[in-house]
């Protein structure tokens, strides 16, 4: 990729003009977005996904090359070097980060990649404004150079064409919100910031106020003759505060939905930048992400029985959780703790064991240990299955990735709808680091904030063993009556250590 600008630079001196004609470049753009769309179609099926991803990457490369061809007015080699510098820095950071990240850390990686995308949109909008307003003489360079479709604005005030202004302002606000929001999401998932909702009184009103200020500033900027260069910085700052304020009050359990939403937002802001720059491939790619991200967000929210607005309004775990916990059936009852040896005996003499893994298993890096346990049990003739809740882990499908990494055969994984009828004939269910997705209150207690959320009905099985770090409630901050059920026993401790201990006991039996 880094070779491209140099090659182009050489090419430019000898190249026939047709390389640089708008028509040719537009054709390349068409090829690029065909590949992007086709690649993305591939991503929707397990067999075509790997190829789809690569096709999309090729499409992206073609889009970049076409864009560089378009720069026939390259003013000196400085531009080439600066582009190279940017690409080199991005490559130097991006490749190692992508290659080293652990599968458990994938959600925060996606969050941060999404964040930098939003940041790029915001910075581009900022430059557009600085450029447009600070140097009225060249103000129409951008749209002019990109097709010359707009009449050049002759006023000395240096006004952008309105379309550029509106879309860039949209990009500036949404991009900035996305950048800061994603960083907060990253911080929470990485546990740099507390996962608990951080909330101010009247948070919703403050957020609405900030949004109003940002939009009002944008309108003033569009219509008025104020000192625009400062105004755009103001808008970016307000949007930055908004991004922080929106995500901070959201609890860890809702984070995947938030990342998906921010992903959609970045897509839309990229599409807006494309509209401002009259760049087809940016419009197409950005909008596809915007549309698909919106659907994905809704699907995730639905799986958790939450609505997107209520997530944005913030704070599961805040005021809602306290009364719900108190009202929970059997809440405050006694729990029965057990030992690894007892669990091993229980499991070894069972016919069917279902393992319900949750994010706690992933953070403890216990998936390989769990796989060992599964093998040990199978060696004793016990049938083992995995019950995968749609939002187990931190994103839909995350748990499948984690278990695939530990070489768990795919046919042992059961989706929620398939496994729920089987719990009645299950002897022991082993819940590892999962909480809210097993909470029977979702079925029985209309007062619970998660009432109606589809859950793994582990309470229907003969016995339940829960591996937990402590009695702390789940990310949703809701008490789980399952723990007080007489047929439930709890094994406290680090999930990985506990599972290894159980495995050793099983093998020793």
């Amino acid at each position, binding site marked *: 990729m880094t070779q491209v600008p140099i090659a182009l630079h050489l090419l430019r001196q000898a190249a026939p003009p047709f390389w640089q004609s708008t028509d040719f470049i537009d054709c390349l753009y068409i090829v690029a977005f065909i590949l992007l769309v086709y690649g993305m179609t591939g991503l929707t099926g397990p067999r075509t996904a790997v190829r789809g991803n690569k096709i999309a990457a090729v499409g992206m490369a073609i889009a970049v090359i076409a864009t560089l061809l378009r720069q026939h007015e390259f003013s000196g080699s400085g531009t080439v070097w600066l582009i190279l*510098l940017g690409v080199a820095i991005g490559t130097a950071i991006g490749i190692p980060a992508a290659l080293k990240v652990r599968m458990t850390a994938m959600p925060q990686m996606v969050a941060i990649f999404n964040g930098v995308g939003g940041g790029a949109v915001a910075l581009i909008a900022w430059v557009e404004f600085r450029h447009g307003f600070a140097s009225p003489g060249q103000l129409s360079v951008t749209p002019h150079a990109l097709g010359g479709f707009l009449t050049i604005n002759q006023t000395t005030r240096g006004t952008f064409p309105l379309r550029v202004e509106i879309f860039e302002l949209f990009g500036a606000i949404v991009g900035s919100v996305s950048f800061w929001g994603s960083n907060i999401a990253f911080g929470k998932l990485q546990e740099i910031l507390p996962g608990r909702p951080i909330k101010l009184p009247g948070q919703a009103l403050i957020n609405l106020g900030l949004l109003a200020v940002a939009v009002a500033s944008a309108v003033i900027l569009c219509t008025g003759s104020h000192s625009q260069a400062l105004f755009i910085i103001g808008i970016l700052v307000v949007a930055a505060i908004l991004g922080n304020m929106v995500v901070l009050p959201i609890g860890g359990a809702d984070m995947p939905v938030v990342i998906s939403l921010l992903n959609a937002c970045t897509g839309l802001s990229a599409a807006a930048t494309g*509209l401002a720059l009259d*760049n087809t491939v940016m419009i197409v790619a950005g909008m596809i992400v915007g549309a698909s991200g919106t659907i994905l967000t809704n699907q995730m929210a639905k799986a958790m029985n939450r609505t997107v607005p209520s997530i944005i309004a913030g704070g599961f775990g805040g005021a809602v959780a306290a009364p719900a916990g108190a009202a929970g059936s059997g809440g405050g009852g006694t729990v029965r703790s057990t030992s690894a040896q007892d669990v091993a005996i229980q499991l070894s003499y069972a016919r069917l064991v279902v393992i319900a893994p949750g994010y706690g298993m992933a953070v403890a890096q216990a998936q390989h240990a769990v796989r060992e346990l599964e093998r040990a049990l199978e060696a004793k003739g016990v049938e083992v299955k995995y019950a995968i809740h749609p939002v187990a882990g931190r994103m839909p499908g995350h748990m499948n990735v984690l278990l695939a990494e530990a070489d768990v055969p795919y046919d042992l994984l059961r989706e929620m709808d398939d496994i729920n009828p089987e719990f009645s004939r299950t002897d022991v269910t082993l819940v590892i680091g999962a909480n809210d997705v097993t909470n029977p209150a979702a079925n029985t207690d209309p007062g619970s904030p998660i009432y109606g959320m589809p859950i793994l009905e582990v309470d229907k099985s003969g016995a339940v063993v829960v591996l937990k770090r402590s009695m702390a409630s789940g990310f949703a901050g809701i008490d789980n009556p399952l723990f007080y059920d007489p047929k439930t026993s709890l094994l406290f401790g680090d999930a990985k250590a506990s599972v290894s201990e159980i495995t050793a006991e099983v093998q020793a039996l």
Partner: protein
Amino acid sequence: MNNLVTDIAVLVLAGFVGYTVISKVPNTLHTPLMSGTNAIHGIVVLGGLLLMSQSSGVLEKILLVVAIAFGTINVIGGFLVTDRMLGMFKSKDKPVKDTTDGPEGES
């Protein structure tokens, strides 16, 4: 102004394409898909490339270099991470097909 109308038409159609493509994705692939679409919106890097040759002043150039670096991280990191995730499913091709076809067939 015609160009704007064309662009908006493209925008709307792309929205429908995105909607159609995504509405039939198995749950299992949601995480790789999110990561993949995440890489695709790295297309904003084009904006940085387009503006670079027209920028003037040190601040603008610095901002654009950062923007291009951000965009590159988004694109390269996104595609690589997606590839890594998908690679884990790849070796178990047939079972993958099995489980994702199952629920659809029943419903």
